[in-house]
């Protein structure tokens, strides 16, 4: 059974990737997960400088989901390269670094530093964080901004570039196209949905930032739809995510058109989920007589045959 997939020039041993902001810098999980067994890990978002993020409380649970506004607390790209990358390299992890910026120049400079570092497999451009005042989603909510960030970073790196798209737009597929036209090697989607939870007794928001990003199983059907729409629009590979909690969820994204998937919130509840996901993918493939999991990508059958049951 071949679980490997290809994202541009990036070869992954399986399509399962730990999502940014949900796996620390990867080293935190080295005791519970063999980092080498994952398709890849995506680091926490990194700016040039260290950031403290928002005050607590930063998360709140919602029905089948959670709201977060961490505010991209992080150690900055240089400390990441010095303090975290060597251990990740030693553990043979495939490392995708999530790159943030408040300005175009910052995206470029962070990307340059990572291009010069040893052990970075790809760059995921964070143009979709809903929880910071400057940068991030400002670029990701504008077609021009998306194009500008991707093309500026394209000029300074040969690493695969994967812009991470926000679902907080009217037509996410047009943003995938803007990224493709600017030279992106793939797109990943979706980041979280901007959302809000209020304590009615105190009439206060339940997280300090007032609003935050919704993730978890609650958003999965919307995310699958968005991956499907992007698959119709762009030719570059898609990395799908949003509420994946088991292998069947991952398969939904792949059938809709995702070449690989990211898992975030589910890893919080079950840090041992990775082996279960691999087993689930293998079980499905043997049952369906699929020899390469990559053959499942974009195989959604939308023909009208046998659909009578829908109206019955």
């Amino acid at each position, binding site marked *: 059974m071949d679980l490997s997939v290809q994202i541009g020039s990036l070869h992954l041993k399986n399509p399962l990737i730990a999502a940014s902001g949900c*796996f620390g810098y990867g080293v*935190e999980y080295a005791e519970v997960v063999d980092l080498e067994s994952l398709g890849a890990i995506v680091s*926490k978002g990194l700016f040039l400088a260290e950031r403290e*993020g928002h*005050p607590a*409380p930063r998360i709140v*649970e919602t029905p089948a989901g959670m709201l977060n506004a961490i505010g991209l607390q992080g150690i900055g790209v240089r400390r990441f390269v010095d303090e975290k990358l060597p251990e990740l390299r030693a553990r043979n992890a495939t490392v995708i670094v999530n790159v943030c910026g408040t300005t175009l120049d910052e995206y470029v400079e962070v990307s340059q530093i990572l291009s010069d570092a040893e052990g970075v497999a790809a760059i995921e451009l964070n143009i979709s964080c809903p929880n910071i005042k400057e940068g991030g989603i400002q670029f990701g909510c504008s077609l021009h901004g998306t194009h500008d960030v991707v093309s500026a970073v394209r000029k300074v790196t040969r690493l695969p570039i994967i812009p991470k798209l926000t679902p907080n737009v009217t037509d996410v597929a047009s943003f995938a196209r803007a990224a493709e036209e600017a030279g992106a090697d793939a797109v990943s989607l979706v980041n979280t949905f901007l959302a809000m939870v209020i304590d009615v007794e105190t009439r206060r928001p339940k997280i300090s930032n007032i609003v935050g990003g919704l993730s978890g199983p609650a958003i999965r059907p919307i995310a699958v739809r968005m991956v499907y729409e992007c698959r119709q629009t762009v030719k570059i590979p898609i990395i799908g995510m949003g509420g994946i909690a088991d292998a069947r969820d991952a398969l939904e994204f792949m059938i809709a058109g995702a070449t690989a998937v990211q898992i975030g919130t589910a890893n*919080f*509840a079950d*840090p041992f989920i990775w082996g279960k996901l691999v087993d689930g993918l293998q079980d499905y493939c043997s049952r369906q007589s699929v020899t390469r999991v990559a053959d499942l990508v974009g195989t959604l059958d939308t023909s009208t045959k046998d659909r009578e049951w829908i109206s019955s």
Partner: protein
Amino acid sequence: MPIDVAAEVIANRALSADYNVLALAAPAIAAAAAPGQFVMVKASAGFDPLLRRPFSVFEVLRDSGGAISGLSILSKRIGPSTRLIYDARPGDRISVLGPLGRPFTTVEPPIEAWMIAGGVGLAPFATLAESLRARGVKTTLFYGARSGGELFYLDFFRALDVELALATEDGSSGDHGRIVAPLDRRLAARQADAPLMLYACGPEGMLAATARVAKAHHRPCQVSVERIMGCGLGGCYSCVIPIRGEHGAFHNVRSCIAGPVLAADQIRWE
């Protein structure tokens, strides 16, 4: 290395309308746990609740032959997860991940230990008291609650020869008011050269008050903090608390891996 066990509920003892002690068959976690460490508990298999909740290891349980058979958690019913934990039945399976976090640093005689607990903050002190008493450390528990009916396990501590100082907000048992008042009095009465370690766990306001009192009397104090936690492993960055860094500046650290036990004088209390 933390392990994840689908632990069978051995027993569920209701202590009041809100508090219960849930005994779980997770002997490997219990055997590895040090006082002050915690477990992440998922009370249901589905998505409601979605995330685990942190609980101090309350007791390490032993069978009649003395072998470790599991652990218990002390829970106060405040939301969906703790409601499921309150209602759990023997034979149910509950996912327990641990042990996690940095434990208390224990002391040796002649240092005395004063433990300060507020409400459900009693949880880490049963195992800490056992560990301290096994070392021969003279130990006192300052324990505050809303009322006398919410002061639990007093006989457990008496049996360990732990001295008790109690306070209740309604005055029904011990001092009338908060537990920090008798702590302050006793600290003021204590000789400055008699060595002492303070350990505190409870609501954050109580911890902040304890930290102020400890500082005023120049006593070291370890606190076990509880912030809203998403994963318990350092992945989500939700449980942060501001800690004084090398140059006096404060940095948010993850209380799940840098704590939950932290030095009180390093924390910026809000």
